[in-house]
């Protein structure tokens, strides 16, 4: 989902920066508040960043014959809310843009919007929506993080189609082309991310139930399916 350096026209690159910056600013505020109110959450915040670090470094093969990577941003979004991930995800994107020539500084606004904003908000919204409907914890974590990952790639496809509409079929034609490249490739990879997140979340549930309850990820009373 990394749009490469220089591969968005200036107006688009700048526009996505303008859209993403308020989310990053809100994320910094949210991060400061969490660290001030619950200093013990720092270890779990670090783990959430580490998860994005690992998953976004792994380029996995997919059935389409190309490789792509999971995002890992759904895990932290479920734990700490989506705002925080706008910061943690952008830090990883910055690292990759500077040291790996993967993504870029001009396209960082657009890449942050898909990976560090859209993905986390989808995962967070689905997690709480499905929990309210009574779905089990593992299933909810799985669906939320899988679809959060997938929507990141749908977003990238839309961003590229907006910047580079097809000369005959316009935005829709280009959107479909980029969806085939990104979103279809991503389906099995997103499922893998959902499954890994369930394993990690279940480990937290076994060993750190109290903190999950403190973050309102699990209810404080009553047994949970």
């Amino acid at each position, binding site marked *: *989902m*990394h*749009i*490469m*350096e*220089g*591969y968005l*026209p*200036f107006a688009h690159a700048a526009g996505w920066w303008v859209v993403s910056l308020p989310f990053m600013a809100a994320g910094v505020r949210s991060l400061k508040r969490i660290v001030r109110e619950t200093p013990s959450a720092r*270890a*779990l915040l*670090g*783990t959430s*960043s*580490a*998860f*994005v*670090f*690992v998953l976004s*470094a*792994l*380029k*996995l*093969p997919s*059935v*389409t*014959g*190309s*490789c*792509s990577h999971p995002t890992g941003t759904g895990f932290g979004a479920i734990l700490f809310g989506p705002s925080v991930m706008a910061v943690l995800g952008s830090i990883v994107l910055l*690292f990759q843009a*500077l040291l*790996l*020539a*993967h993504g*870029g*500084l*001009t396209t960082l606004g657009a890449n942050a919007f898909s990976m560090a904003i859209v993905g986390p908000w989808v995962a967070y919204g689905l997690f709480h929506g499905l929990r309210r409907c009574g779905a089990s914890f593992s299933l909810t974590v799985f669906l939320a993080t899988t679809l959060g990952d997938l929507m990141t790639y749908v977003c*990238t496809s839309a961003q*590229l189609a907006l910047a*580079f509409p*097809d*000369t005959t079929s316009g935005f829709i034609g280009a959107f479909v*082309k*980029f969806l085939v*490249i*990104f979103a279809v*490739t*991503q389906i*099995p990879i997103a499922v*893998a991310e959902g*499954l*890994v997140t369930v*394993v990690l979340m*279940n*480990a937290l549930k*076994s*060993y*750190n139930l*109290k903190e999950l309850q403190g973050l309102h990820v699990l209810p404080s009373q009553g047994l949970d399916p």
Partner: protein
Amino acid sequence: MKTTLIILAIVFLVSLPLVLHRPKAGTESFGGADDKARAEVERMHPDYKPWVQPLWNPPSGEIATLLFSLQAAIGAGAIGYYLGYLKGRGKKD
């Protein structure tokens, strides 16, 4: 038990494409989706010229692999440290 099954499912999901995919002659198999998207942009808009270059490029594929491995290793180390700490602390809470 459940965890083991999930991990096996992940291994299966990730290795299946390597078996299923039949490469077409003359095309690169398992290249990056990002590169394919760039190629698509260049195909649809051959007149588009990227207006900035990355400040620094890893000098070779090996160096890029090193940096990606380092990224994954740092992350995995941190997660392992945290889970080990929780497990050592015990299931008391």
